[in-house]
């Protein structure tokens, strides 16, 4: 590991010297530092900023502090009651030990598990811009089927982020240029020709909280994840959904897919295709197809298209 200096952040206004990085639970950053993929000069610890509260928003909804540990968020009774999809997504991720350290902001900003990205000796446009993308011809079984680019086909690995994307969550940010709020669906970028940038955050911008707006249909919501073993493994594909059905007709729906793109994939096309339609297996499949029509699978990951289609069907049937 490259050497660095360590300090705690003074306040929640953000800002970082060149070469500095925020440190939260460390479960991703320390790992990447050991691998030589992350090489910060300065670590600025944000876990003492008091951003570890979950509060009620005045008009309904919840404000989740950036530093709330994943295990505390998953156990919160308001989250379990009003946004079960979020609790389920968190519990589907990592392990009990890791969730005790991992934070809301750190989870959102965790980096791809693409094996070439995590190997500092390999070329990779994400860790060494311009060096190429070995995954496109190499091991890409778990990489993107939607929104990828010639320069990068990585997926975002977070489960939590998929639930937040379905729930219309907003990310509160403070930095040198002041405060701003970004929908979680616009926090992560598509790779385009700058895959080294995962998100729209500028250097020194600190995430302070994630706001969950009130959303009645979220009380009937669920997360389903497929992986290569029963537990303690990243998703091969996942679906977060919330559904409201009256008299057999879909009144409203939220859908997002995980492990299919460089960002948690909010399935707006599928949602549009479903509103006002009968709540049947055929409509669910047709809605999934409407979204997946844009899929451009690689040699070894076409199975994900079928996987997501089937997941959408089974999750929505379970909710209807």
């Amino acid at each position, binding site marked *: 590991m490259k050497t660095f200096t360590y300090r705690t952040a003074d306040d929640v206004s953000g800002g970082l010297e060149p070469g500095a990085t925020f440190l939260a639970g460390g479960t991703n950053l320390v790992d990447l530092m050991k691998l030589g993929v992350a090489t910060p000069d300065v*670590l600025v610890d944000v876990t003492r900023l008091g951003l570890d509260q979950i509060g009620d928003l005045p008009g309904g909804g919840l404000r989740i502090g950036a530093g709330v540990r994943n295990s505390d968020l998953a156990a919160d009774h308001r989250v379990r009651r009003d946004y079960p999809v979020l609790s389920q997504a968190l519990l589907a991720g990592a392990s*009990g030990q890791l969730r005790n350290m991992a934070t809301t902001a750190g989870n959102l900003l965790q980096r791809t598990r693409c094996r070439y990205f995590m190997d500092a000796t390999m070329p990779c446009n994400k860790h060494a811009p311009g060096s190429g993308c070995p995954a496109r011809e190499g091991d890409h079984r778990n990489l993107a089927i939607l929104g990828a680019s010639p320069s990068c086909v990585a997926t975002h690995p977070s489960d939590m982020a998929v639930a937040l994307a379905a729930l219309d969550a907003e990310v509160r940010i403070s930095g040198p240029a002041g405060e701003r709020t970004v929908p979680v669906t616009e926090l992560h970028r598509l790779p385009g020709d700058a895959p080294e940038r995962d998100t729209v955050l500028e250097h020194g911008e600190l995430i302070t909280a994630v706001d969950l707006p009130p959303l009645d249909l979220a009380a009937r919501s669920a997360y389903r994840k497929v992986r290569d073993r029963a537990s303690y493994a990243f998703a091969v594909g996942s679906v977060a959904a919330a559904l409201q059905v009256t008299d057999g007709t879909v009144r409203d729906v939220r859908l997002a897919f995980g492990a299919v793109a460089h960002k948690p994939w909010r399935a707006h096309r599928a949602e549009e295709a479903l509103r006002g339609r009968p709540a049947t297996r055929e409509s669910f499949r047709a809605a999934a197809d409407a979204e997946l029509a844009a899929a451009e699978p690689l040699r070894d990951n076409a199975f994900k298209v079928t996987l997501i289609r089937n997941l959408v069907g089974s999750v929505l049937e379970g909710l209807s």
Partner: protein
Amino acid sequence: MDLVVNGTEHSVELDPRTTLLDALRDHLGLTGAKKGCDHGQCGACTVLLDGRRVNSCLILTVTLSESEITTIEGVDHPVQEKFLEHDGFQCGYCTPGQICSAVGMLDEAAKGWPSAVGDPELTDAEIRERMSGNLCRCGAYPNMVPAIREAAGR
């Protein structure tokens, strides 16, 4: 810096890169916590930090100024007897991590924390899911499950 481990305060001088696991093993001589993968993937390094189970291989020791750490050397819990009774191990390499993890897990379950399985009781399926952050290369899982179940009073 000062570290409180198993109720005893220690003063250590550390490079900021030192993980808690390396501080325990190489600087304090507490070799109970094991280094399996060093990347959060196996659970052999599990210790209790302010009572919560964590992977000590991913924690930088400099971040821990006011925390109390409990390692397997400081654990005194019924689950230890139960592991002996049920032969919950073969080579024993994963065992300190399994025990620390079980202690933390039983506390989480007692607080009513949910798991991905979603059973209201601490069934065997719940125990397996909640303990999935601890791998055992010897595959001693079938004997650990009843040990943990009985330690939970079931």
